Structures are given as C-alpha cells and as structure tokens.
C-alpha cells in the first residue's frame, strides 16, 4: 500500500537472511527473544502523531528512506578516532563501526579481574550467564516497535560487566561510528551494562557519523545498577545532521544504587530519546540530565520516565535546550510515585532558549503521585536570550557574538558542570565555543 508497509514487510521477510548471517549466535536463548520480538514487530504499527507519545514528533521522514542493515565491512581512519577522544583522559576505548565491534580499533586498559568490556555478539556466542539473565528484560519489546526491531535484529553492541565490589577507575569510552556512504543504512547498537553490588563504573556512549550522510541509528541500552553500585553514564550524540537517531535507555536500580546520566545532543535531523529509570528498592539516587543544541530543521525529542516504585529514593532531572533557526524541541518528563514510595524526592526542570522566532519547544511535565508523603517539583521555562545581560556584557566592551557565546555557555553551565569528568566537560565546552564564538 504505502512505504510504511513496505519497510515493515522487508524486515519480516528478510529475517531468515539475517538468521543465516548470525553464524553461531542462533543457538542461544537470545534467539528466542529475537523471534518473539519479530512477531511483536509485525503486530505493532509505526507511531504517528496521533499517538500521544509521538504527538510532536513525526517519523514520516524516517520511514520514507527504507533504511536497511548493511553487512559491508568498513574501516575508519585512526585520525578520525583520535579526533573523537577526550584530551588527557585515561580510558578504555571500544569502537563500533556501522554497529559492529571493531577489535582492531579498541583498546582496553588493565581492567580489574572479572570485568568484561567488549562486544555483545561475542558474549551471546559464549552464552554469558549475566547476559542471558538481563538481556531484553528491561527494554520492553511488546509495546515499542523500535525496541522490537532492535531486539529482533540483535546482532552487536557494547557489553560491560562489572562484578561485585570491582571498581573500574578509568572511564569506558564507547564510540559508535556510522560510515554509510551513499547507502541508506540502519545500525542498531544493542548495549547492556551490568554493575553488580558495590561496584563502580563510568561509561560514555558516543555516537558519530559522517556529516551530511543519511542513515538511521536505532539504539537500545539496558543498564543494571545492583545494590550500592555507582554508575556514571554520559551519552554524546553527534550524528550527521541528516541522520535519524532513535534511542531507548532503560535503567534498573536496586537498593542504594546511584545512577547518573548526562545526555549531550547536537546531531541528527530527528532525535528521539526515551530515557527511563526505575527504582526497584529503597535508597536509590538517580540523575537524568540533558543538554541539546540544535539548529536548521533539527528536531530533538526527549521522553523521560522516573519510576519511583519504592520509598526513600531521590531523583533529579534537568534538561536544557538551545534552539536556533526552525529547530524544534520536545521534552516530556514523566514522574510516577507509586503508593509504596513514601519519602520520595523528585525534582524536574526543563529550560529552553530560543534564538530565533521560528524555533519551537513543546514541554510537558507529567506527575503521577500515588503516595502522600513525598516532595516533588517541576518547572519549565522557555525564553529568549537575556537582552539585559547581553547589553551589560557589550557595555563592557565584549562584542555581540562573544556576548552571545558567554551567555549560552552560562545557560548550559549547570548541566555541564555536573558532569564529573573534566576532559568530557572540556570537550562539550569546546563544542559550544566552536558553535557560538566564531
């Protein structure tokens, strides 16, 4: 009938071909999940703006390209990789090119005994028990078509396992590079990070692509923070400005665990992030922060869900957007405080600066509170650049562009300064400086 049906049929019909290429990965119990997800995928429909959850984000432009996976092996230059690293940061590095692990580009530092950092495809083949226990448990493929597609076509992605009591000192930097050339390709990084009791790890997911290329990244990341584990997560999205980026992050938090995530997003024509965290036991801390800087016709959509299922947990959420030209931003922040979850503290804030008359933001906090002894707050501001402040700076001899740059730095600063790693902060500062201080 129309192209929407075509591309869905393509994935259903080509599943057999995909299975043949799995080369050993077919024997694990994961494969049953793939098949279940495929049947969900064939049952589900791609969302339209009639769906409440996709009201402001039309994926029609994405569907018209018929993105399909590519099995061609690509090699990227060392210079490119070097340009993506953070200065003066000791780190373990793992690289994925068009969704597949590239061992020759990756570099692991001396990791504590038992820690695994690498390719999820390898662990599927090895039937890793941690993987089998957690894979697909948190990212729902029953009701979300993109997660169903990711699960059905699970092939590769990053797998990080930190056993009980182990502390990984140096951050783990994962770079997903897409080199699509003229092909309209789909890459589906499928990540699973498990931090066991009393462990600690810092993980950076970094998405990049060749500027101007049109491709589709559909990523799913599941994160488990077990009792008293500390997981620091950063996601940098610098895809091609013509690309599509749809991502789901599901975080499962156990007793007294501490999870923090910072999403910095500048790339892609259409970006949708679903970031969901759930407190499964008492005493958890969760931070979900975000900063997006967009222009042209870019669209950035963040949907977050903070699920306070248990008492005595604290959540903090702060999303900031800088929008120029005809770009559009969507923020939908849902906080659920379930009946049991007394003594919950949940804070949410969303601030946006519109640099042009045509930029637009839709922001919606959604609080569903079923407990009676809780502290919840939310706030949203949408404004222009502060002209008073700009005049003040100019009256001190600072030029128009530099004043603008200083004020935008300042606007973004509270999200940036809450990132713990200085090298990453500097990298993000540099992005802002290059963009606004020409």
């Amino acid at each position, binding site marked *: 009938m129309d192209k929407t049906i075509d591309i869905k049929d393509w994935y259903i019909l080509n599943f057999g071909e995909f299975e043949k290429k799995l080369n050993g990965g077919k024997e694990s119990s994961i494969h049953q999940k793939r098949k279940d997800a495929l049947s969900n995928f064939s049952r589900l429909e791609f969302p339209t703006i009639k769906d409440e959850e996709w009201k402001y984000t039309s994926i029609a432009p994405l569907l018209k390209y018929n993105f399909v996976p590519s099995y061609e092996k690509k090699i990227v230059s060392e210079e490119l990789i070097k340009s993506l690293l953070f200065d003066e940061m000791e780190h373990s590095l793992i690289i994925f090119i068009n969704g597949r692990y590239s061992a020759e580009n990756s570099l692991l530092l001396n990791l504590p005994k038992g820690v695994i950092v690498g390719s999820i495809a390898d662990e599927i083949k090895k039937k890793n028990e941690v993987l089998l226990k957690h894979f697909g448990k948190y990212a729902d493929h029953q009701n979300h078509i993109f997660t169903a597609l990711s699960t059905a076509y699970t092939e590769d992605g990053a797998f990080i396992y930190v056993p009980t009591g182990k502390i990984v000192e140096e951050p783990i930097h994962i770079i997903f590079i897409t080199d699509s050339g003229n092909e309209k390709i789909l890459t589906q990084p499928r990540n699973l990070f498990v931090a066991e009791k009393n462990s600690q790890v810092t993980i950076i997911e970094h998405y990049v692509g060749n500027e101007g290329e049109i491709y589709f990244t559909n990523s799913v990341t599941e994160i488990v923070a077990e009792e008293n584990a500390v997981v620091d997560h950063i996601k940098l999205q610098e895809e091609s400005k013509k690309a599509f980026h749809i991502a789901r992050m599901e975080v499962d938090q156990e007793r007294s665990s501490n999870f923090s995530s910072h999403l910095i997003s500048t790339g892609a024509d259409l970006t949708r992030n679903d970031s969901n965290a759930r407190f499964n036991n008492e005493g958890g801390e969760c931070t979900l922060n975000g900063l997006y800087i967009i222009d042209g016709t870019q669209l950035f959509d963040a949907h977050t869900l903070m699920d306070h299922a248990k008492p005595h947990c604290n959540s903090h959420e702060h999303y900031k957007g800088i929008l120029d030209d005809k770009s559009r931003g969507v923020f939908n922040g849902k906080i659920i405080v379930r009946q049991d979850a007394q003594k919950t503290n949940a804070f949410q804030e969303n601030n946006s600066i519109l640099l042009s008359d045509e930029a637009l933001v839709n922001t919606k906090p959604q609080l569903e509170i079923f407990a009676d002894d809780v502290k919840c707050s939310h706030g949203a501001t949408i404004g222009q650049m502060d002209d008073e*402040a700009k*005049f003040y700076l100019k009256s001190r*001899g*600072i030029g128009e562009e*530099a*004043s603008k740059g*200083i*004020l935008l730095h*300042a606007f973004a600063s509270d999200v940036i300064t809450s990132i713990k790693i200085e090298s990453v902060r500097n990298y993000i500062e540099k992005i802002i400086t290059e963009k606004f201080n020409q």
Partner: protein
Amino acid sequence: MLEIKNLHAGIEGNEILKGIDLKVNAGEVHAIMGPNGSGKSTLAQVLAGREGYVVTEGEVTYNGKNLLDLATEDRAREGVFLAFQYPVEIPGVSNTNLLKTALNEIRKYRGEEELDTMEFLSLIKEKMKLVELDQKFLSRSVNEGFSGGEKKRNEIFQMAVLQPKLAILDETDSGLDIDALKIVANGVNKLRSKDNATILVTHYQRLLNYIVPDFVHVLYNGKIVKSGGKELAFKLEELGYDWVKNGKSEEVVNH
C-alpha cells in the same frame, strides 16, 4: 571630550530627552541631578548605546567621533563606561571571566597585547583593594546573590579594571549605606585624573559630599534647566526639586 548638542531621544515613541546640551572636558566631574522621571537614566543609557532608545534629533561627539554611530561594545572599547543603576545578574558567568574577556577585547581593539593570566590576576588584585572587595568575589557569578552595596562596588571595581576615559555613574549612590557610599566615592576619587572625565547621575546631593563635582546640572522634563558649580547642589538640597519644577529657579538663584 564629550559634546552633546540638542539631543532628543525616546523609547517606544515617547520622547524623554527634549534637547540636551552638555560639554564635558577631560579632567572634569559633572553631576547631573534631577527628580525621578526627568530623563537622567535615559541620558546615561543613550550614551552607553542601549538598544531600544531612539535618537530623533541632535548629535553626540566623543573625542572627535560620532558616538551615536558606534556599537555599544565599540563605545566601551573607545573608553566609555556605564556603571549601571541596576547591575545585571548573570548566573554562570564568573566575574573573572567577564573582566578578562572585556579587558582583552578592549586591548585587542586598541591594538595592544592581550594580558596573560598572571598579568591579569595581579591587575585585578590591585584594583580590588580600591573598593575593598574580597577575592572570593572573583569566582562568583556576576552580581548573582550580591547585596545592593556589593553590586555597586562591583561596578566601580569593573571601572577600575577597564580604566575608562569617560565614566558615567548612573545612580551609583542610590540605596547605599554611608559606609558603602564612602567606599564607592573613594574608588571614584582615586580614579580621577586630568585625562579622564566622570558624569555622576544622581537624585541625591549626599554623594556630592564625597565626590566633589566641578559642575552641577539640573535635569527636568528632558532638559537641562540649570547649570552651575557645586553650590547648586546645596541649593537643591535646601529647596528641593519643587524649586525647579515650579519654574522659579531663575528668580531664586538671581537673588
């Protein structure tokens, strides 16, 4: 240094300045006094290049240049400094960052070398003493959470660092207690020299006990209705602004 001729200006179609004439030479301190709404702050804003104000008539010459043709930042780079009546709070921008950027942009404009961090720090340490500001101010965000007195002292501190040729102090004395007023006045006095000029915009005579002006001008209804020496300020203090409002000023002064 500064010559204002028949300046008419307003905002959103309302004419506020209705023909100002004023000449300021290097080395002079001029006080512009007047009741609320007389146009004092508008004059300060127009000279600094505030957007939104429209000059409809007249001219302003500053060191031989048409001041009104210069962008706000270029006026500052040419040596014009406005101490704000209500200094703006800028969360996320440290005082150091503001001053270092400003100073170096000004130096760049004048074809001078930028200061390195050490030179900059020793300069600001020296200037901080002038207004008795604590060093911890440097890393704080510009004016954020400052008391009224701290904000005004910060303005004078910025002035000391940027070393303008023409300083316009817009109601810098309003709301200050006597100790803060003395600190601010002391800062201004120490910066006075034969090469620079100061315009004090004020509502109250009190400031002029500490900063002695060479000339006093009374602004009323968008015009300078009276000019004289420092004794004019005392007269105003004694008789109040009703004296000029009633249009009887000529008689009284001529007595």
